[in-house]
């Protein structure tokens, strides 16, 4: 008998040293689902590999292209999945995506108050703070305080627009291109786009101006 209580090793258990109650429960459920033939270990492994292959760099690519190609920006805002596919990012799957654009008048912020809905098919797994009770409760109620803590609160006459993703749509922010980046190429621009700016808690900065 192995340490997981069954006669077979579990995929994704890595070091096998995870012993928190939640982790143990997940391992037990995983084992049962495989035993009962609901899932195969290969399917679980495929899913883990898929998730590992997603990252905020995908979001940065989409944003940098949108900043440099107006036509692409329109497609990103109207049909996110096919725009992503143009850059080789496969976000196909049952959930839909909406990209919301920051403008001089509107600053967007994404949250999922009920759980941790996040554009995983593009950006990968959400950061821990995004899943925290504190962020989920405060982002809807005091978004400006949250933005302030992350470093930049918009002025009073800018509309702060919070998106609570409670259902089948996943949201991503298209931040504004920072000033003074006119000469930059796409790759350099990608470097300015942080994960936090895709969630809307931060805005991209032209590091040349801020150091």
């Amino acid at each position, binding site marked *: 008998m192995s340490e997981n209580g069954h006669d077979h090793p579990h995929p994704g258990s890595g070091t096998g040293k995870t012993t928190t109650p939640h982790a143990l429960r997940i391992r037990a459920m995983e084992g049962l689902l495989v035993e009962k033939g609901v899932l195969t270990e290969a399917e679980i492994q495929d899913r883990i590999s898929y998730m590992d292959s997603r990252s905020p760099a995908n979001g940065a690519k989409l944003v940098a292209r949108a900043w440099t190609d107006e036509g692409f920006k329109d497609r990103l805002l109207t049909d996110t999945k096919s725009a992503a596919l143009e850059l080789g990012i496969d976000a196909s799957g049952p959930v839909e995506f909406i990209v919301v654009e920051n403008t001089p008048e509107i600053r967007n912020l994404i949250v999922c108050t009920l759980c941790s809905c996040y554009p995983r098919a593009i950006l990968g797994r959400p950061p821990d703070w995004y899943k925290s009770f504190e962020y989920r409760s405060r982002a809807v109620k*005091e978004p*400006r305080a949250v933005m302030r803590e992350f470093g930049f609160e918009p002025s009073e006459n800018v*509309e*702060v627009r*919070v*998106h*609570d993703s*409670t*259902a*089948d749509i996943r949201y991503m922010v298209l931040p504004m291109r920072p000033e003074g980046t006119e000469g930059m190429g796409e790759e350099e621009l990608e470097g300015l786009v942080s994960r936090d700016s895709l969630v809307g808690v931060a805005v991209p900065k032209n590091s040349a101006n801020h150091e």
Partner: protein
Amino acid sequence: MIFAEGEAVRVRSLEKSGHVRTPSYVRGKTGRISRLLGGFKNPEDLAYGEYDRPEKELYRVAFRQSDLWRNYEGGPDDTLVIDIYEHWLEKA
């Protein structure tokens, strides 16, 4: 019930338990339909293995933050947009 973009709606205060996707802070509040998202299977059914139930229309509903929270800190134009299934909405 089908709602149109721009229409004023109130979120119903249904006493439902289980896998409900309408958070309590918008229940009883009035906002406006900002976008029609189309038909989706209802998570309240899916969570319990009822895959054959009909789809529900899903809407983006926009609220003024000052209508949601007492003493909201921020501009009067600040908004919150949330996705709500049709059976949680009524005409306001």
